[in-house]
Structures are given as structure tokens and as C-alpha cells.
């Protein structure tokens, strides 16, 4: 298990390197020029010299390999350069937002797991009953309804019941955890509904699949308590595909939720993403993509390690 873990962690390094290189070059293929957009926004007539001067100032007229060199040199130090638009440090810019997206992702994962596990399990164990049908209707709704729309419904519901809105905007969890949680629980719920539906349906189908396996019949033939058959023999095997779904959804949330963020007026990664794309802010964009990709790779690493912990076959084979 230790050897597997170390090998798996070491594999992360080349993966991230490849991502970094790819991001840099792919973004530079995209047409458009930030300097022109930036100057045009200021109005007036822009001369070619002005553009050239600005480019020199931002280091955009360097040969692409020089730019690449500077970018790669900065990476190990966590230096992602400066935003071409605001000229703030990209790392700082991202760090100030990622916390919020991260918190939202974690909160909705917790909510989703808390909702999905009982729903999925009950639905599988009482397959074909009314309970199963009700749960399946709830979960198919979660997948069909867009999160932001559900968020809007939530806001209206709160308004109707409490007569006032949840405090929009955010206070850091470290400053005032209570208010922060009260603010964050609503967007987390609006995202978590969809999330939990995906997980619950996955869990239901994998439990059903596992319960029809030969080894479950063996366990029953041994006269083991039905509860133990399901928890010990069934759940551990059914968890494998479920863990993957949870992890992938989590990684997806790290990338920010453009519309949900604006519904709840949250200043997360999603909004930053949109801004950087609209403004053609290459430095910021590549920093963002790199951050999200790193999140994905790390989450996948965790899934793989969890898999190995759950399934001995993976531990020994690789």
C-alpha cells in the first residue's frame, strides 16, 4: 500500500508539468489582443505606437519562448505573473477567490453525501416500492433542474417564509463562522441538491449490482445477519464507483459556478474565469486553468488512493 501510494504521488508531478506546458501554448493560439481591448476601453484613438509601448511594458512583445521561460521559472515559486488587466499578482487574485469556491465545494459535498447515502441505500434496498419511486422522482428532479434556478427558488422560499433575505455576499469563515455558514448554506444547498441526486442514483445502481453478485449469495448462505451482508459485503464494493462520482463532482465545483455565484452574489472563481476570458487576460486565465487542473489532479489522486484502500486487487496489481 505504501509503495503504491508513493508511486501514485510521484506520478502527479509529470502530470502537472504537462498541464502547465499545454495551458501556456494552447492559450497563445487563441486570437485576440488584450492591449487593444484594454486601450479601446479607455476610448479615443489608439496609435500603433501606443499599443507597441504597452506591449513592451507588459512583456508581451518578447519571443514566445522567452515568455514561456519566464512562466516556467515562476511556477515552482508559485509566481503566476501579474494580471494583464488589473496588474495585480495573479496568485493573490486567485487565492482571494479560491477559498470561497473551496468552501462551497466542501459544504455541498458534505450536504450531498449526507442526503445521498440514505436515499440511495433505501432506494436500492426497497427497490420497486413506493419509497423507491418517490426517491427516484426526487433525484431525477435534482439532475433535471439547473442549480441556479433551484437557487432562485430557494431565495424566494426563504423570502416567503422568513420575510427577509439571507444575507447575500460573504464574510470570511475565519472572521464570523456563524454568519458565514448561514450565508453559504443556501448556495451549498442549491448545488448540493443536484450533486446528491447524481451520487444517490449512482449508489442505488451500484448497490443493486453488488447485491446480485455471487459473493452476496455466499454470505447469505453462511447465515450471516442481513445487516452485515449489506454493510460489510455489499457497501464496501458498492462504494467504489460512488467514490469516483463524488470526487469528480467535487473537482468540478472547484472550477467555480458562474451562474450560481451570481444568483447568490458570491465572489468566487467562476466570475474571475468569465472576466479573464472576456478581457483576454492570458496570465490570469492560465493561472486559473492551472489551479483548477491541479485541483482535478489532486482529487483524482485522492480517489485513486481511496480505491486502493477499499479494493485490495488494486493495491497488489500495480
Amino acid at each position, binding site marked *: 500500500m505504501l*509503495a*503504491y501510494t*508513493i*508511486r501514485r504521488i510521484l506520478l502527479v508531478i509529470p502530470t502537472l508539468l504537462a498541464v502547465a506546458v499545454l495551458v501556456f501554448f494552447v492559450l497563445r493560439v487563441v486570437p485576440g489582443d488584450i492591449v487593444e481591448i484594454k486601450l479601446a476601453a479607455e476610448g479615443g484613438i489608439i496609435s500603433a505606437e501606443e499599443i507597441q509601448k504597452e506591449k513592451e511594458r507588459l512583456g508581451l512583445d518578447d519571443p514566445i519562448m522567452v515568455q514561456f521561460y519566464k512562466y516556467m521559472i515562476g511556477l515552482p515559486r508559485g509566481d503566476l505573473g501579474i494580471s494583464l488587466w488589473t496588474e495585480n499578482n495573479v496568485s493573490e487574485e486567485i487565492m482571494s477567490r479560491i477559498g470561497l469556491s473551496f468552501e462551497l465545494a466542501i459544504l455541498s459535498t458534505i450536504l450531498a453525501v449526507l442526503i445521498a447515502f440514505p436515499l440511495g441505500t433505501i432506494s436500492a434496498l426497497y*427497490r*420497486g416500492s413506493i419509497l423507491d419511486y418517490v426517491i427516484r422522482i426526487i433525484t431525477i428532479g435534482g439532475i433535471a433542474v439547473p442549480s441556479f434556478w433551484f437557487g432562485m427558488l430557494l431565495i424566494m422560499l426563504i423570502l416567503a417564509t422568513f420575510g427577509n433575505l439571507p444575507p447575500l455576499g460573504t464574510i470570511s469563515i475565519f472572521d464570523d463562522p456563524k454568519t458565514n455558514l448561514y450565508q453559504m448554506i443556501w448556495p451549498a444547498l442549491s448545488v448540493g441538491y443536484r450533486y446528491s441526486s447524481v451520487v444517490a442514483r449512482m449508489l442505488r445502481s451500484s448497490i443493486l449490482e453488488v447485491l446480485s*453478485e*455471487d*459473493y452476496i*449469495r*455466499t*454470505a*447469505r*448462505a*453462511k*447465515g*450471516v*445477519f*442481513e445487516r*452485515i451482508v449489506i454493510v*460489510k*459485503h455489499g457497501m*464496501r*464494493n458498492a462504494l467504489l464507483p460512488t467514490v469516483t462520482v463524488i470526487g469528480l463532482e467535487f473537482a468540478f465545483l472547484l472550477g467555480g459556478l458562474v451562474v450560481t455565484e451570481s444568483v447568490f452574489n458570491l465572489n468566487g472563481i467562476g466570475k474571475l474565469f468569465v472576466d479573464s476570458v472576456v478581457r483576454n487576460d492570458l496570465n490570469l486565465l492560465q493561472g486559473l486553468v492551472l489551479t483548477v487542473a491541479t485541483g482535478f489532479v489532486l482529487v483524482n489522486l485522492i480517489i485513486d488512493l481511496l480505491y486502493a484502500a*477499499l*479494493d*485490495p*486487487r488494486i493495491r*497488489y496489481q*500495480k
Partner: protein
Amino acid sequence: MSQPPLLDVRNLQVEFKLKNGTVRAVDNVSFQVNRGEFLSIVGESGCGKSVTALSIMKLLPKRVAEIKADYVKFDGQDITNLSENEMRKIRGRRMSMIFQEPMTSLNPVLTIGDQLTEPLITHLEMSEEESNSRAIELLNMVGIPEPEKRLTQYPHQFSGGMRQRVMIAIGLACEPDLIIADEPTTALDVTIQAQILELLKDICNRLGVAIIMITHNLGVVAAYADKVNVMYAARIVEKGGAPEIFGKPSHPYTIGLLRSVPRMDKKRGGRLATIEGLPPNLMAPPSGCRFKPRCPMAADTCDSSPELKERSKGKNHFTACFYSDDANKKGASIYVSDKDKFKLIKVKKDKPVLSVRGLKQHFGVSFRSGWLSSVSGTVKAVDDISFDVYPGETVGLVGESGCGKTSVGRAILHLNLPTGGELKFNEKELNQKSVALVRQDMQVIFQDPFSSLNPRMTIGQILEEPLKVHKIETEEDARSKRVSELLTKVGLYPYMRDRYPHELSGGQRQRVGIARALCMEPKIIICDEPVSALDVSVQAQIINLLEDLQRELGIAYLFIAHDLAVVKHISHKVIVMYLGKVMEIGDSDTIYGEPKHPYTKALLDAAPIPDPKKERGREKIILKGELPSPLNPPKGCVFSSRCNFVTEDCRKASPELVDFDNNHLAACINIDGGK
């Protein structure tokens, strides 16, 4: 009888409620098992034998299965109406079950120790320590070396045979009164099958455990069973002691079943008796006697259902047939007609159609051993094999799984590029280029009739494809005519061209596979386990078909199989392989009559003969252990690690094939020691 039977089943009936109707999978079945007795339930797939076993254990899914019975008395207690929890207390404690698939019957994420101690902790309330030492004891008993270490391992670290031993250990853990074994050795090699069955019988004899063994293998029944129930289409058609069932079968189905299996102890020649047709669909079973549509003795009386009647008082031999006396008297002759008798064709041995010299198929493999380090090695799947196949001849290739027999077939067809040796087809050299030119003349029939036909193509499309590809019939009408001819030739009907593979039965699909091979008018067909997925009555039909086609068209077969009796029946010449090497090669009758090589003898001993008198009388060598890893074969003779006659010299050098007489070759330096 002073003691009441251990298990007494009266009028058991199991119905499955499915979306498109109700299937009565078990219909009024009654039988008894005494303490320490060995009862066998035989029948073809779908006859209800497994369902009977599962319904006694109450392991059928409750949502769809409905079990009814006058009573099912276990040790005097009627268990039909026991609650789930009361039943749970009996399962694993007083009766336990061993399943067919050792590969999937153990939980992959729990250790062997965990799974083995579970019943001990649940039923006997043992502490962890007690249960661990008992588990070690159990593993020792079922012959698993290093039990302490093995307890902490997971199922994937065990071979199939070893897993089945673990299943037996689990079954025996709480010393039950009854063990139900559902096809426990069907997925295993004959040598391992012999080990497992001997073990099971031995332990149960010692502990006085009764066994219900469900199987389709009549040899296994003949070797071990005290009593036999023969099931057909959800009903018991004949039951009685093993000597009566095998010696004086009196139901036409039992007779047919016994006569349709090829026998190792009989001389070659003649077709197998076949039961025509297929078992009925239980959704709409025929009224009256269910065997009537396939029975050669059927008469008008058979429109009403025959009762199970005792043949003569006190013999405990029951038959459900109106004409049982007649059937008993006539025996096998009810299935045999004149066209079934034929002379064996002498094969003209002038020009071989296929000539193999020094064929080698080595695979390079590498796998991780520690972290970041890997080990590489060579698996010699086929190592220096030579033989000839003449026109109209069948050459059988036998050996345990993993011995390289399938690799030989694939190398000849160039599905894997051979790594050495010389192949000649009709005296022309075969290599990567020239093989395309003779592909038409070399066809193949695969083992699995379910996965080797494309499910999205109709039978007609499947058969027309090669005709198009090889531009044999370019006109559509001619192609269509050809397909009709082919279907008729393999015993199907032309109208079946529009059907899809899933609409056909296993036997019919294998006929399509044969038709596909035939449509190129090949000189040789490589048959890779063509009948191993089929029931015995269907197997006999396919074997007869292959033989008829050979007589008619003069095709040569390379017949790869693990069933020794089938190989003996169909082959002129037999090659015995072990770990990529030829152990013995010779005429079929010679190999089976006077085997020279210790491995051949052990293989023949391991395969049970469906005749209790012969089977129980003969002395057997049972091979110990399992096939060694092909990555690390024993030094010298590859068989030395399992041979009972091994000497120091055997480990020094690999023995050459020595000609004994008339092309009977064996690779062993101690042939006399092997006698």
C-alpha cells in the same frame, strides 16, 4: 428404517413471477436424503436442479420466487414456514452450500480469514482468537499450505482450485449436517476436479455429512453418488440408487443422457446417440409427459402426465414413464438406427494438409515487482511442437487450461505471430504474407457460441459476409442460395437466416459457427473447445454433425478440448500437452488404451467414467498441486514438479519425444517407472 431422513422434501414447487409470465421452475419434486448420504441431482441446464437446491436453503430472491411445498423437513423440523431469522440460524450452521463459480463466490475486498471466520463468529459465537485457530485448522483440512499466511490474503491471490477449497472450508466451518454443492467443479480442470471431489467426499465421510451434489457430469455422479435424481423440465423423471440408474435406466431421457456422452472406456466408432430437439420452454411446457416431443418411444398415452412409480417393491427405484419396462429392456437401442453405424474411415497418410515443425510461441511479459522496478520474463506458451494433420483426419489436442493448446491454434492461424518453427499448408510455407492466401482454406470454430457471433447481424448476414469478403459469390441470388444450403447442411432451416443470434439456442448458434466455417469450403477447421459450453444432449448433436461433415467433405480438424472423452471419440490422433510441450502423441485408441506418459495416465485417471462399477473399481493416480507458473517452469522435464515417478535425472534435462511403436511418441525417461 429406524432413523428418519435428514432431509425430507415433499411436493416442492417453485414459481418465478416474471414480467411476461410465470415459470414453474420446480414442479412437485419429492426426495429424501439420509444422514451421511451422497445424493446427486443431474439434468441439463434449465431443468430446475439449482433452483431446487436454492429453494431448500431459501436463497431465492423473494420478490420473484414463490416456494410452496407440502413440507420440507430438515432433521424432523418443517422449515417451509420458518421466519427469515430462524432460517438464517440454520444456514451455514446446519446446512451450507458450495457454489459453482469459485472466481466470483468470494468477496474480493475481504480477506480469506475474514470470510472464513464469519460463520464461526455468527453461529458459534467464537472469539476472534478461537475463530482464527479454527480457521487455520480448516484450511489445513482442505489442503491449503501455509494457512497462517493465507488467512490474511485476498481471494484474487488464490487460484480457482484453491478458492473452491476455501469455499469447502467455509461450508464445513460449523460442521453442518448437510452440504449442498452446486456444480462445484464445473469451472475447474479435470485434475483439480478430481482433487476437490476426493477431498469433499473424504471429509464428509469422516464427519458424517450428507451431500447433495448438483451436476451435469454423469462421470462425477457415477464416481461418488449413493442416490441419483434425474430431472427434466422441472420434474424428477427417474430416481434411485446409483447402480440402478446407471445399470438399469428405465426412463427414455435417462437412457438418452447416458448414451449421448462419449465414453473413454469404449472403442471408437459409430455416432453418439442423440436426443433430438431441445428441452421445452418452461413458460409454456408441453402437456402430459414433458419429454414426449423428444422421446423416441412417445405414444398417445403420453399426452397425460405419468406419475413417479416404484419399479419393483422395496428397490427405491422410481420412474415417471408409461413404458418404463419397455425402455428398460430396449436400453440404448431406442436411440440407435442403422444410419448411426458406420465404419471409421482410414486416413490416407500421403500428403499432410497441415504440417507443423518445431512451432514456438513465446510471449515476453513484464510486470511490477517492487516500486519503480519491474521483472520481465518469457512465457513459453508453445515450445517446440511438431505434428501433421492429413486430409479427413481429426487431431485432438488435450491438456489442462494454461497448457498452451489454444495458443497452438492461434499460432497456426497467425492470429498471434509464431515466434519460431515452420508451418506448411498443403506443402506451401505459411508466413505472415502467405497466410492471407490460405485463410479461406483454414477456418476456425470458437468455444463460446454466445459471444463469437455479432449480435447486431442476422444469421444470413453473418454467413454472407465471408462470401463477399473473399469474392466467392458476387451475385446476391447465388449468395442467398448458398446460405440456404449451408443452413440445411448444419441441420438448421433456411428461414432462420433472418433471425438474430439471441433468438437461437446455444446449440443452434454453434451450428451457425460451423456453417460460417464451412462456407469457405475449407480444407481444415481449427475447433477450439467447440462443445464445452453445451449441454450433453446438444454436445452429442454437434459432435455427430462434425463427424458427418468430415465423412462427406473430407475436412481435417484440429480439435482442441479439455474433455478427454470427447477428444477420444472424435480424434484419430491425440496430442497431450503440458506447459507448452508435447508429453505424448499417438493414435487415439493407443493413447487411451496404453498411455505411456505419467501425465497422460493421470489425466485419464482424473476424468471419471459414467459407470459406477468401472469407475469405483479402478485405481487412480491423483495429481497433486496445480499447474506451475509458466513464467517459471520446473527445470528439466516440465512435468517433474507434479510427477509421482520423478527421479533425480528428470530434473537434469528436458526429455526428448521417443518413438515407442508406430508413431506413438512420449517424452519421459522413466516410461517403465510409469507403468
